[in-house]
């Protein structure tokens, strides 16, 4: 009856930088189309935040503002405002994410798309005993893993920093874009 559970011992210590994993889901154009399929024009309306504005957004949202330049488009059809399209970046624990937020003309959230997802790998765990076995070996202390990774199962990554990003951009809308 045995054999349904496969027990695998994995190295307790992992040394070296492995690979970066990146997935590109959208270009700016395809994200715009996904968020506003009916829109005719996207008018660039980039914003450079002053330090006062950055502070005000932090205060209103409770989220740190990292970048002063924000890529924003005003979305229109036949001269009628449909809303806003904002491209943003957030840093997670191990991941770097470019994403887009679409707002309706009243400032409420229309939709959200992840554009690019990257996980950076530069992990090193120092352990003298384990490293000792590689002394005198070339390239020994480096575990090389395949670059072409498409699907990952395991520790669930939290999307809380995106939720924080939404709060921050809604505060930006209130303070800078509205009116």
């Amino acid at each position: 009856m045995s054999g349904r559970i496969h027990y695998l011992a994995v190295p307790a210590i992992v040394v070296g930088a492995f690979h970066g994993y990146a997935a590109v889901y959208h270009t700016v154009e395809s994200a715009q189309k996904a968020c506003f399929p009916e829109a005719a024009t996207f008018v660039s309306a980039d914003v450079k935040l002053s330090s006062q504005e950055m502070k005000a957004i932090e205060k209103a949202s409770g989220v740190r503002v990292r970048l002063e330049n924000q890529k924003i488009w005003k979305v229109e059809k036949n001269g009628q405002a449909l809303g806003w399209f904002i491209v943003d970046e957030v840093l997670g624990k191990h991941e770097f994410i470019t994403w887009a937020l679409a707002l309706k003309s009243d400032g409420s959230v229309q939709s959200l798309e992840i554009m690019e997802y990257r996980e950076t790998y530069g992990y090193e765990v120092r352990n003298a005993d384990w490293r000792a076995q590689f002394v005198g070996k070339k390239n020994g202390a480096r575990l090389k893993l395949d670059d072409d990774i498409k699907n990952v199962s395991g520790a669930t990554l939290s999307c809380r920093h995106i939720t924080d990003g939404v709060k921050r951009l809604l505060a930006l809308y209130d303070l800078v874009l509205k009116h």
Partner: protein
Amino acid sequence: MTSCSSTEVRRCRPLLGTFVEMTAEGHDAESMNRAIESAFVAMERVEKLMSFFRPDSDVARLNRQAFREQVMVNADTFLVLEHGLALSRASNGAFDFTVASPLLVQMVQRENAPLPNLPGDWRDVELLPGNRVSFRRPLHLDLGGIAKGFAVDVAVDCLRATGVESGMVNAGGDLRAFGPRKYLVDIRHPAFPQAMAHRVELQGCALATSSPCFTETERNGQRVSHLVNPLDRSSLLGHRSVSVQAPECWLADGLAKVVFNAPLLAETLLEEFGAHAFVLSA
């Protein structure tokens, strides 16, 4: 006919507290995008119904009221309850979604209250005609152990119904492949999430991984994680993960907990459900 002009569309959105990625393969990008859009909407619906945190979810309503009165829930919620109770029965309670982690309960209560220890368990959940539910004793229902997997199944059904040939839905590591295409999946190292520890190939089946070590923390002087052993109500701890490969994702998700809590019994159950498990320990 071979689909030599097959295109692949991949999209990703934050959902269910994590990142949900969908891959759809078919003849034209436009209809793949539409299919993915509708699958995301279907998953959002599951999240709204089964979230532990949303005060208006079926789960929150049950936790507030089902001990006092019968509560009517959505048919999907009812189905997940049926699935879960079947798994509880088959595993003698090694899977039990009525024993929520103290970590979750505290996140909802938002205070460092003493760890709650409600006496109820899965045997106290009564499923009644008309999608009604009542609890015989107070308990904390938490569908987190299978609802994410169920949401993946719902999305897969939706993609297939809208004409997608092959695809993959991955909700933060609980994933399912469908159609003729084979997908490679890497399982994260249970101690170092940036390292991949094992690779499996999936065709037309699901894989779900559970591991306590990324939520392990200290509360009121006790080590706790989001995973609980319902048999003695202790938090699961340590650098290990369980991945279960099964025909459907809710099942893979639920069976992973059984493998953690009752590995001997799990052998029989895995056999019965046509599933396999990979236990990774560092």
